[in-house]
């Protein structure tokens, strides 16, 4: 039994013990779990374990291949960093939710059959919602409910897809599929919701900023990357993903530019970066899938890092809105430094991790002669330089003005950011070591002269234009406002419609309830009369009656038989 244990279960089951610990012991305990999980994952090696026969289907509890292992590894690291970052939290519910959520994501990655995949898929949805609820305010509660509804919808679609797929093919294994059948479309939409496809994306920007300071960090690491993994697993090389990805790269960048809330800004640009991975999956070559795995890993590193830095500001200043912040760097220099590192990474500055990972996907696109896609991605790369790479540090941390008199972030937060920074820069300096854990063998030189030069051109020209725009007041001023997104449709007119519909349904339902109460009441009375104590069917019948029944039915049988 223990042999086939899914590594994710270490975190999930370990979470159940958290409420029984406290203080220092709890800190050590929650940090130890991801380390043990990671160690266990690597000690298992590649292969599939724990085959279980249930009702005629084989479940493969654990299946580890190179692609899954990359995701599993970074998930463990993210869980560790996120937990370290959240050590100040005294609310065991958040620790439990974090561990279960991370464990479910890991377990989903290592699932070898569709039933397990679905179970963990739903578990991530439910456990992560608690990270949003944990903010304990009304806005967070509402956002959490919207989040939960959307996530569970994804799960239900997946379940429907699985049911159809198993009915058609009789096969429960996690394996690539062709887009075409109804089942495969259900899969794609279920994955698409979690990947935050354009128009299915609003839950990201809606929910993430409402979670707790540490909750957002955790949320950003798993759900969307798990979905990317699922896409890569099932739909690698599917052409439709190219165009979805291209739109996805471009679509959110304008909102990111306008956004006032630092965390929402990061959420939008993260969405755009997801587009790179979707395109990579769409290209589907070995180089592209390597790029997807690499970029997912790196993207978790810098997204977490940026959410941590902005979260630390929120934690100390009580706000993460550009308009409310002053010269943060003066009192929180280390946090500001980590924010700059995060920005450099997301810009793909040479010697940072994204410089290595992003170029894999770009090269894959060029190898496939997809120039338009390549230009779209390049545009996305420029945009991210603008709205995260420059905007976050300059507007969020290095604004001119008075010292805000804040305290530096707590040590464990700084430590968590440090861990991620070291990893992000370490990968940037030694990319070939990192490339070895990628799914496919790879021969790729990151640091060619032209690559460094072109990338520097990209960054410095963008910075120059950015500075000019700010200087000449052309840059949209951050305002204390919201920017409407697609979710307006379901949060305004659809809501009104739903409320009216709800009232109507309610009225109908009450009527129906009254009617059915009457009907059920009648049934119960009748049942009691006929089936109860002295009723026809319940009392001891005389043997004469019994024999007559036998004769009657014998007659009927004879008639039927002839």
């Amino acid at each position, binding site marked *: 039994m223990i042999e086939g244990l899914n590594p994710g279960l270490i975190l999930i089951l370990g979470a159940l013990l958290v409420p029984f610990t406290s203080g220092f012991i709890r800190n050590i305990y929650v940090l130890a779990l991801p380390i043990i999980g990671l160690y266990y994952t690597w000690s298992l090696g590649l292969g599939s374990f724990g085959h279980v026969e249930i009702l005629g289907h084989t479940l493969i509890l654990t299946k580890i291949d190179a692609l899954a292992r990359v995701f599993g590894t970074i998930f463990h690291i993210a869980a560790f960093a996120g937990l370290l970052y959240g050590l100040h939290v005294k609310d065991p519910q958040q620790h439990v939710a974090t561990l279960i959520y991370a464990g479910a994501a890991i377990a989903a990655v290592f699932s070898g059959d569709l039933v397990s995949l679905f179970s963990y898929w739903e578990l991530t949805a439910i456990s992560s919602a608690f990270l949003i609820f944990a903010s304990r305010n009304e806005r967070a509660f509402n956002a959490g409910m919207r989040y939960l509804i959307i996530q569970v919808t994804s799960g239900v679609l997946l379940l429907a897809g699985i049911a159809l797929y198993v009915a058609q093919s009789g096969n429960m294994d996690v394996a690539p599929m062709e887009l075409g059948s109804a089942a495969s479309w259900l899969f794609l939409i279920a994955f698409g919701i979690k990947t935050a496809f354009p128009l299915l994306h609003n839950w990201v920007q809606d929910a993430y900023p409402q979670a707790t300071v540490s909750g957002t960090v955790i949320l950003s690491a798993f759900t969307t990357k798990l979905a990317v993994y699922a896409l890569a697993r099932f739909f690698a090389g599917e052409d439709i993903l190219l165009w979805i990805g291209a739109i996805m790269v471009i679509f959110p960048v304008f909102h990111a*530019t306008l956004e006032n809330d630092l965390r929402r800004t990061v959420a939008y640009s993260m969405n755009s970066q997801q587009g790179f991975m979707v395109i990579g999956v769409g290209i589907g070559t070995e180089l592209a899938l390597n790029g997807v795995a690499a970029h997912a890993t790196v993207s978790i590193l810098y997204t977490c890092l940026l959410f941590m830095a902005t979260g630390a500001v929120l934690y100390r200043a009580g706000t993460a809105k550009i308009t409310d912040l002053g010269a943060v760097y003066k009192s929180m220099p280390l946090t500001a430094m980590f924010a700059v590192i995060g920005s450099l990474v997301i810009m793909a500055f040479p010697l940072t991790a994204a410089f290595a990972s992003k170029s894999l996907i770009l090269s894959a696109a060029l190898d496939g002669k997809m120039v338009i896609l390549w230009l779209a991605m390049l545009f996305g790369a420029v945009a991210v330089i603008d709205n995260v790479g420059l905007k976050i540090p300059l507007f969020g941390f290095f604004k001119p003005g008075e010292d805000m008199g804040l305290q530096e972030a707590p040590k464990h937060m700084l430590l968590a950011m440090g861990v991620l920074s070291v990893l992000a820069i370490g990968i940037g300096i030694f990319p070939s070591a990192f490339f070895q854990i990628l799914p496919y063998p790879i021969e790729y030189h990151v640091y060619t002269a032209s690559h460094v030069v072109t990338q520097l051109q990209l960054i410095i020209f963008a910075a120059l234009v950015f500075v000019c725009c700010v200087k000449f007041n052309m840059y949209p001023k951050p305002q204390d406002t919201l920017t409407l997104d697609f979710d307006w449709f379901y949060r305004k007119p659809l809501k009104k419609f739903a409320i009216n519909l709800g009232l109507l349904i309610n009225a109908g339902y009450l009527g129906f309830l009254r009617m059915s109460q009457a009907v059920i009441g009648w049934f119960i009375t009748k049942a009691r009369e006929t089936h109860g104590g002295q009723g026809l069917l319940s009392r001891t019948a005389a043997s004469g009656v019994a024999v007559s029944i036998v004769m009657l039915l014998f007659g009927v049988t004879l008639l039927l038989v002839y």
Partner: protein
Amino acid sequence: MSENMKKTYWLDKAENKKKIFIGLIIAAILVALPDFLSLLGILYETHPYTKVEEIPAFYGIYAALGLLVVISVAGFIGRFLTVKEDYYD
């Protein structure tokens, strides 16, 4: 704490901002230079995959244009889509 408030940082001075701006321009010229030099076959050879990459300093120009597009489109749609913070509450 009060001491901290009075401390002036390097960035607070206007001339330092100017220095950064000039530094950026110099850096831009420096990174664009190799492309032009390579046209003359000096320093290194580029390996363009696509036609557009043959334009000198293509990446720089594309970045500058792209950024302008982002900012102007964002500014344009911002006019229609901006609402008060508590719009949904």
